[in-house]
């Protein structure tokens, strides 16, 4: 067990999977010699050589499409999109192709592909280096979308994603990369894709969230605990398809639910979470389902004033939690 950063857990999972399985390889922009613009693939080019850590031309649709082709014949490509914002040119390949290959071929073909991409704001990335893009893909059966919050989860879920026989989008919060540290076992382990994780038990209110916001909720929960309010914090971990059981269980238990995302509010992941609760445990609720999210503007601006206004933080979460607890 070693304490390591979120990004080091990414690198560790990649390295171990590449050591374990010859069919795993990495492709993307600047992932080779440079080791990625965030250094997520640092050292892998040196260890595994150019043929398994491929610097591609600057063309995301090809990155996804070439990876899909390789995956269909038995490879396990891990494609990196340099920023989640730049996944857009690859949407056709991801939605029309990767997501539908198994289904359209009646289970004859499949596509064991992982697409990793750093998402999220708070790093002066402005409109095009701060976006949360998960909602764009979160209505495409055939895809899975994983968004881990801790180094431990990163390692276990990235391994599971690489071993998964279907395409997985794996979004890593870029602000978490160096900010979030935690224990990561040296040994090999997988965490189940499709399962949420209760990161903190509590009886009074439920906060359901994912990614970096999990930490904000946990910090806020500690403060509330000092005032005798015990919050349950559910980390979705997989945001598509959602773990309905876990959502329903926690919502039913506490009857007060706050949903948090860094994304814009309308049409976000937490909208679906709210819908699930409203469908399944309406009569267990003691308060309206609260959603706390970024404002409905195109993306996070550059100026620190505006970035702060947009970005989620522990204070905003705490305030919403207190309001809900007092409801």
């Amino acid at each position: 067990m070693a304490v390591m950063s979120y990004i080091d857990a990414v690198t560790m999972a990649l390295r171990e999977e590449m050591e374990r399985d010859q069919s795993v390889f990495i492709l993307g922009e600047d992932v080779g010699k440079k080791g990625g613009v965030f250094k997520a693939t640092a050292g892998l080019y040196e260890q595994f050589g150019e043929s398994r850590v491929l610097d591609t031309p600057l063309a995301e649709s090809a990155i996804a499409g070439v990876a899909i082709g390789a995956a269909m014949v038995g490879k396990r490509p891990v494609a990196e999109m340099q920023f989640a914002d730049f996944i857009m040119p690859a949407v056709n390949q991801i939605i029309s192709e990767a997501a539908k290959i198994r289904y359209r071929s009646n289970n004859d073909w499949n596509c064991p592909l992982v697409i990793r991409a750093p998402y999220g704001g708070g790093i002066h990335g402005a409109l095009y280096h701060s976006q949360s893009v998960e909602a764009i893909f979160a209505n495409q059966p055939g895809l899975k979308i994983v968004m881990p919050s801790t180094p431990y989860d990163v390692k276990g879920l990235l391994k599971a994603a690489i071993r998964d026989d279907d395409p997985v989008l794996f979004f890593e919060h870029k602000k978490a990369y160096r900010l979030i540290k935690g224990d990561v076992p040296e040994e090999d382990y997988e965490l189940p894709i499709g399962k949420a994780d209760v990161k903190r038990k509590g009886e009074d209110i439920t906060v359901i969230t994912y990614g970096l916001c999990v930490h904000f909720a946990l910090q806020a929960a500690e403060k509330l605990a000092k005032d005798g309010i015990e919050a349950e914090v559910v980390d979705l971990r997989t945001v598509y398809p959602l773990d309905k059981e876990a959502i329903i269980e926690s919502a039913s238990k506490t009857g007060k639910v706050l949903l948090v995302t860094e994304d814009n509010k309308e049409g976000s992941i937490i909208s679906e979470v709210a819908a699930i609760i409203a469908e399944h445990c309406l009569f267990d609720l003691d308060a309206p389902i609260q959603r706390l999210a970024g404002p409905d503007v195109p993306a996070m601006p550059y100026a620190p004033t505006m970035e702060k206004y947009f970005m989620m933080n522990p204070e905003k979460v705490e305030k919403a939690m207190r309001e809900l607890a007092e409801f």
Partner: protein
Amino acid sequence: MENRHEKIGLTDETVRKMYETMLLARRLDERMWLLNRSGKIPFVVSGQGQEAAQVGAAFALDRNQDYILPYYRDAAVVLAFGMTVKDLMLAAFAKAEDPNSGGRQMPGHFGQKKNRIVTGSSPVTTQVPHAVGIALAAKMDKKEYVSFVTFGEGSSNQGDFHEGANFAGVHKLPVIFLCENNQYAISVPADKQLASVKVSDRAIGYGMPGYTIDGNDPIEVYRYVQEAADRARRGEGPTLIETMMYRLTPHTSDDDDRSYREMEEVEKAKLSDPLLTFRKYVKETGVLTDEQEQQMEHAIQQIINEATDYAEQAPYPRQEQTLDFVYAEKEQGGAV
């Protein structure tokens, strides 16, 4: 008529087989239209006029190891690669047994893993990067196979063509890009589609050789594709081949081509219908006798009849099968 196939090492036997495959594809296509016009199948997309290039190319490949990524008009390619008339009929009737998709996709969306026919979709040109990825896997694993992908001239204007071709060029991958230039993309003629004179003019931009050849001549196409396959296997990278032809039918059974092209133009093109010209070739070079031809037509008719009957009677997928195969079947400890 000059015997051109011997020179490039093609036996009479193979050439006869090539003609037979073209004829089979044509007769099958014709039957599909009849079935459509009589209300038995909802949709046809046709390869009439493109069989020469398809068969010439398919026969030049190694049909025991190469991967193919055909587009929707490539019935002749997939027939050459082992898909049966019955398979195609099952797809046309959207029956459960359809090996392409279990009745899920429209006809023309080929896929059959056992024959290395890679599953395709409707959005055009997405298969081009896939072919490149399959070629990349060959290079990585030092395998001998080649990956072969086709597309229309209209589709060569999609970004995926550019990105895929450049990727293949940079990494010198064993892939053959074959454009079936049938001069129309639905209603849009090639000169409103392509700023270049030829699609093959784009090859230099991807560091690969590019050729524009007569797509009505299967021998010519065979020669170029064989050479491209050899290059690919020698590790010398990709090739772009543009085959010139004419789309003899409307775009699909939903299209009426009279609204955008002169019927005289179509009639004129029919004079160089590759089925007629190649028939002339095999007859005059003595590859095919009249008797053999009759037998061939007869056998083909029988195959198609049987396949039609079979497919018509085969059951549809059960409605609950709609829910199958979204993800891998759950295994213990596995994912969703």
